[in-house]
């Protein structure tokens, strides 16, 4: 294409804005001599009618083929001049603008000569560009006549209603479960003191009922695509776990829910339940269950007991329901309430703050409580399945497996070689730790459900079971063999192995023991053996352990109890040989050890200290260094690991033989725990049911629990209280019997302890709500719903955040009970608030006789990067002050303020009204608030700037007028919508004066406090303005889009597909000769053209040949003057 050769250059003075610095006539004169320029002149105001007419006349008179206007920023005036040249018959794209005002005169005011030379250079660059420009035609696209309004506060409500009333289908998307925004939480609104909800409620319900408004609450925009007129929004409607068609809003569920979390609608002044409705006027008037995921305790528990659920039901006094919830998972609340290693407590979120919730003791309490009250008899479960299942071994794994299978309707038989059920629980754990009647009771309960127990029956082979007609087998035979120490004299008389020792004692056999006993080992069996030996009459009991206390695997509190009972522990001591005389033990020879490097178990390896041998005189030795599995009976038929345990698939617990499953110590070896055994039994039960029904053992198995992404615990507001100590039996009583040492928590202590639970998951899935919901509206399995909507325009009305001074503890907030924020105070005056409209100070619920308001807390404050006025603080405090005076004329009210700002109509009279009612206003920002010991009243330290007097005034309640801030996620939101944010993080309008509701992104409008602090009338006005802006875009039905899209020259293209890879919009399609850019998808960024190695792709209006001459012109400028 030939170069343009008759270019006109117009240099605007912009009054003195440009001409005050730049010598405009000289610049115009200079431009006249540039090659290709046919005409140049300077104009007083190029954008005025006169100026535009002059440009148009020059185009005709001088047959101009291109135009440069050197004036202000093209970001505001390019459309004006494009239209101007178009009206004169030139193509609108044969135009370029030089920015002399923002980029020259205003920023180089003190260097007029240099500024003038820079102006000349910029014009020379622009002329080079215009020479290469080409006429372009704008495409017309159809506009989808629908709007999405994001944010259901008063601005969004106003915008939605105006749009819908004008006939446009409108989606109103709100992330909370109700619309209404902050206004719905206010009591009165200034200056006329209207009742907020009384004026907002009706328009909220209009929104709910409007046929053209599609209200999407509890919803967020996941993704935005497309462009003006044709946006695509992906909406995530978070699950309320409620069928909103069925929910009647009756509120029965709320009474049944045991969970309490701070209510965001009461600013921490009151709690709400996990199933909730924000406030009575909520639109839609439906309940919502808040679920954050499954609590860490439940995920950590190998059997996944619903810990948060039973703990909260316990706290609510629903002991039976709590126990049932526990039993839903494990049949051993009492047994595990005594012997569980409680890995859940190690991961309890509360433990990060003070101490974990005493979870084990709580389910023990529930079990004890049931015994105390008498348990409901258990009915035999009906069996609807025919395939019989055999379980070998009546230990915790086998019983847990049977418990799940019988409840699924399978006939189950447990075969046990010993005479009584319980396995290790009965034979390995001493009675003073786990009373036999607890074991009996819990096993009996499983038997009562219909599980058949065959005692004294040893199974020798799997075929035996097959012949009896069993279709699946679970092996839970434990690890019943003690590991030998392998030292000289181990078989002497008087040497026991722990399992045999405990077994004999626990089964009531006669065991005689001498005065001096040593136990070798450091696990729970060693501690149990030591404490048992004491109870059998031993005078001196020692534990010999080769590492230090830190490495000891026994439970810490068990070690403490053993020491309390008189057990001595010899750390870093290794036995070498048993001293015997005539086959009878007399002592043990040991060597001292020290800790060396870390070994494969992650513990420091003990190393012998040379020449440190010594001998201890003894009557008995008990070896407790672990248990193992030996391949006996049916185990022979299955594959083993190198440690002798059975090999199973850890996800299904299936052994090497299909249909044969195993779990507990036979798989774990001696190091396993009871709760792990229970978990194995349960996993195997699930697998057995799948196996018998022919369902894939692995399908959809692991995705049932979802961790909480982050636990949102308001640590700052948490009171500190420690878990209760477990009451124990006195020492003298202990050694005379096998009576249980731990006595259990009292009801009061247990309920209080349960109250320390932080409700991490919010809803705990205790399912109490299901039992009371008459319309059956609740479904805990519902998921989020993703939908896509297409709209022509978007109105953003996402609002603001109120500054919470809890982190900074500003003016003692969060530390002193009687310092509250203005938002909290609003809830005090609100009849629907926690005090039913009475103003009460939090510490003693008395009516305060003196109230102070402190203004600008977090506002106009450079320290927190918020040095702007909150716009509403003064009026709001004046309003609240008058409310106090109306209700309690005797109460003194003081407002501490740097200055009171009451702008516009009506607001000054509010100020006068407050003054007339006797409200005192002190000019000055208080320096500090101190609590007066004993009275909980507050001393406000301030300086009165009028009198210079230092004030120390006592008030009974202090209200902080806190700042208004942008939402924390405003930046992410802005990125999603391709919007800009300003200095303080609010959304940025296209022009602060003339385009206050337009975003830079065409088709997006902004309204309300997402733009900055606003009061209600202003937010409504903005909402309506944004609605009007959207309507004027949508009404014509079509929109012209800029023709700046990329195009590929397939002759040059080498098909490397770099452009396709680079394009953010996937606009490049096809291969080789077919390769092209879809202009409707291309947004015109030109990143593809910037990367093409063959210069085969280029972008209209920003072509290579249109840019390169500009660069040359710019680069050749020397000292500000072109050569």
């Amino acid at each position, binding site marked *: 294409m030939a170069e343009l050769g008759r270019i006109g250059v117009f240099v605007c003075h912009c009054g003195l804005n440009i001409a005050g610095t730049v010598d405009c006539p000289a610049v115009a004169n200079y431009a006249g001599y540039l090659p290709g320029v046919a005409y140049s002149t300077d104009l007083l105001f190029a954008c005025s009618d006169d100026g535009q007419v002059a440009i148009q006349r020059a185009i005709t008179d001088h047959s101009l083929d291109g135009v440069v206007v050197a004036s202000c*920023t*093209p*970001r505001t005036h390019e459309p004006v001049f494009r239209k101007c040249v178009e009206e004169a018959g030139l193509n609108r794209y044969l135009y370029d603008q030089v*920015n002399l*005002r*923002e*980029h*020259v*005169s*205003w*920023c*180089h*005011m*003190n*260097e007029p000569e*240099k*500024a003038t*030379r*820079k102006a000349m*250079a*910029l014009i020379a*660059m622009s002329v080079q560009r215009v020479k290469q420009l080409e006429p372009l035609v704008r495409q017309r696209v159809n506009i989808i006549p629908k709007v999405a309004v994001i944010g259901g506060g008063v601005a969004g409500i106003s915008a939605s209603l105006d749009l819908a009333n004008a006939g446009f289908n409108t989606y109103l998307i709100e992330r909370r479960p109700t619309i209404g925004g902050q206004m719905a939480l206010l009591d009165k609104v200034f200056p006329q003191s209207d009742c907020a909800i009384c004026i907002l409620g009706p328009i909220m319900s209009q929104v709910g009922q409007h046929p053209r408004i599609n209200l999407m609450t509890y919803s967020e925009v996941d993704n935005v695509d497309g462009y003006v007129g044709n946006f695509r929004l992906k909406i995530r409607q978070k699950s309320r776990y409620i069928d909103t068609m069925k929910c009647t809003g009756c509120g029965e569920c709320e009474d049944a829910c045991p969970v309490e979390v701070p209510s965001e609608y009461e600013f921490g002044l009151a709690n709400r339940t996990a199933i909730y409705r924000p406030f009575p006027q909520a639109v839609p008037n439906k309940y919502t269950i808040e679920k954050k995921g499954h609590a860490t305790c439940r995920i950590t528990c190998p059997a996944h007991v619903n810990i948060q659920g039973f703990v909260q039901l316990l706290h609510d006094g629903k002991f039976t329901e709590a126990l049932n919830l526990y039993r839903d998972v494990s049949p051993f609340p009492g047994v595990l309430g005594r012997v569980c290693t409680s890995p859940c407590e190690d991961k309890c979120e509360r433990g990060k703050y003070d101490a974990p919730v005493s979870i084990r003791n709580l389910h023990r309490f529930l079990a004890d409580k049931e015994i105390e009250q008498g348990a409901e008899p258990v009915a035999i479960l009906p069996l609807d399945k025919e395939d019989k299942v055999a379980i070998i071994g009546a230990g915790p794994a086998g019983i847990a497996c049977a418990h799940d299978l019988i409840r699924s309707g399978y006939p189950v038989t447990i075969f046990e070689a010993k005479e009584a059920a319980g396995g290790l629980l009965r034979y390995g754990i001493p009675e003073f730790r786990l009373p036999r009647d607890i074991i009996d009771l819990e096993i009996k309960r499983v038997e009562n459900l219909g599980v058949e127990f065959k005692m004294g029956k040893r199974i020798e082979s799997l075929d035996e079971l097959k012949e009896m007609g069993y279709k699946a087998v679970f092996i839970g035979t434990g690890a019943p063999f003690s590991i030998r120490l392998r030292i000289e004299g181990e078989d002497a008389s008087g040497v026991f192995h722990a399992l045999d020792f405990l077994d004999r004692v626990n089964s009531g056999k006669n065991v005689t023991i001498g005065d001096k006993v040593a136990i070798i080992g450091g696990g729970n069996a060693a501690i149990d053996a030591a404490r048992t030996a004491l109870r059998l009459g031993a005078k001196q009991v020692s534990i010999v352990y080769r590492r230090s206390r830190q490495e000891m695997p026994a439970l810490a509190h068990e070690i403490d109890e053993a020491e309390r009972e008189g057990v001595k522990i010899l750390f870093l001591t290794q036995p070498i040989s048993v001293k015997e005389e005539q086959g009878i033990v007399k002592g043990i020879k040991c060597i001292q050890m020290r800790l060396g490097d870390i070994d494969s178990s992650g513990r420091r390896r003990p190393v012998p200290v040379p020449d440190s041998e010594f001998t201890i005189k003894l009557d008995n030795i008990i070896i407790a260094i672990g248990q193992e599995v030996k391949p006996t009976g049916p185990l022979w038929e299955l594959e083993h690991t190198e440690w002798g345990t059975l090999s199973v698939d850890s996800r299904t617990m299936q052994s090497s033989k299909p249909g044969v499953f195993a779990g507990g110590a036979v798989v774990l070896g001696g190091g396993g725990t009871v709760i792990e055994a229970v978990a194995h039994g349960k996993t195997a039960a699930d697998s057995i049911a799948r196996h018998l029904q022919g369902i894939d053992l692995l399908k959809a198995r692991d995705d049932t629990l979802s961790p909480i992404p982050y636990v949102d615990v308001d640590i700052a507001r948490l009171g500190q209280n420690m878990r209760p100590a477990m009451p124990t039996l006195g020492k003298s009583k202990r050694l005379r019997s096998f009576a249980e040492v731990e006595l259990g928590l009292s009801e009061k202590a247990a309920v209080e302890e349960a109250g320390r639970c932080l409700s991490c998951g919010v809803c705990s899935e205790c399912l109490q709500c299901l039992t009371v919901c008459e319309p059956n509206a609740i479904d805990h399995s519902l998921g989020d719903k993703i939908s896509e909507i297409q709209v022509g325009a978007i109105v953003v009305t996402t609002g603001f955040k109120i500054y919470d001074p809890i982190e900074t503890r500003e003016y003692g907030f969060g530390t002193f009970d009687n310092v509250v924020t203005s938002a909290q105070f609003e809830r005090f005056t609100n009849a629907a608030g926690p005090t039913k409209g009475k103003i009460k100070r939090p510490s003693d619920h008395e009516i305060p006789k003196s109230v102070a308001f402190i203004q600008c807390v977090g506002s106009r404050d450079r320290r927190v990067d918020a040095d702007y006025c909150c716009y509403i603080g003064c009026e709001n405090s004046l309003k609240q002050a008058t409310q106090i005076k109306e209700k309690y004329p005797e109460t003194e009210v003081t407002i501490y303020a740097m200055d009171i700002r009451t702008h516009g109509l009506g607001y000054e009279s509010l100020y006068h009204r407050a003054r007339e009612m006797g409200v005192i206003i002190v000019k000055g920002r208080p320096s500090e608030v101190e609590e007066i010991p004993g009275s909980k009243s507050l001393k406000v330290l301030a300086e009165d700037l009028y009198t210079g007097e230092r004030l120390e005034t006592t008030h009974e309640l202090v209200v902080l007028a806190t700042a208004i801030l942008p939402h924390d996620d405003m930046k992410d939101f*802005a*990125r999603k919508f*391709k919007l*800009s*944010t*300003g*200095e303080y993080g609010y959304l*940025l309008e296209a022009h602060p004066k003339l385009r206050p509701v337009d975003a*830079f*992104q065409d088709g997006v409008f902004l309204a309300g406090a997402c733009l900055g602090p606003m009061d209600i009338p202003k937010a409504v006005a903005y909402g309506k303005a944004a609605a009007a802006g959207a309507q004027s875009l949508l009404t014509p039905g079509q929109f012209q889009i800029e023709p*700046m899209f990329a195009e590929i020259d397939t002759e040059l293209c080498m098909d490397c597909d770099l452009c396709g890879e*680079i394009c*953010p*919009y996937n606009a490049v399609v096809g291969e080789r000769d077919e390769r092209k850019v879809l202009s409707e998808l291309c*947004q*015109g*960024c*030109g*990143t593809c*053209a*910037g*990367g*093409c190695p063959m210069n085969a792709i280029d*972008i209209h209006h*920003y072509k*290579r040949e249109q*840019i*390169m001459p*500009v*660069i*040359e012109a*710019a*680069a*050749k*400028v*020397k*000292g*500000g003057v072109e050569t």
Partner: protein
Amino acid sequence: MSKKIFDPNIVAFTCNWCSYGGADLAGISRIQYPTSAKVIRLMCSGRVDPVMVLEAFKNGADGVIVSGCHIGDCHYSTGNYRTQVRFQALQTALESIGMDPQRLRLLWASASEGQQWAEAITEMTEQIKKLGPSPISGRGKK
């Protein structure tokens, strides 16, 4: 008449959405800075072909600035990631041909960062004054 003072000439590529707006804001806020930078407005900093930067140096520019939205804030989502990658390659290339890589600067400036824009131009101008005229411009010889 007066002695010659070296007055650097900088070619500044900006995107339309963030950096050009930032430069506008510097002017609207009347923040004063040197006249050295000549702005070339493109839609996205991703449009800047490395050849364009070389073209500027070839024609004697003392310095080049490529300026766009902050990473993550690109109006076109990912255009400025490309800019960043190309910029690193360009710096290496400049170094290999004996051009001080300090003559090329990448600047992320948003539409609300007028102050940052003005400071960056001021700093860059001072830096280039220290480095002296571009070896290509032919003004380096006394």
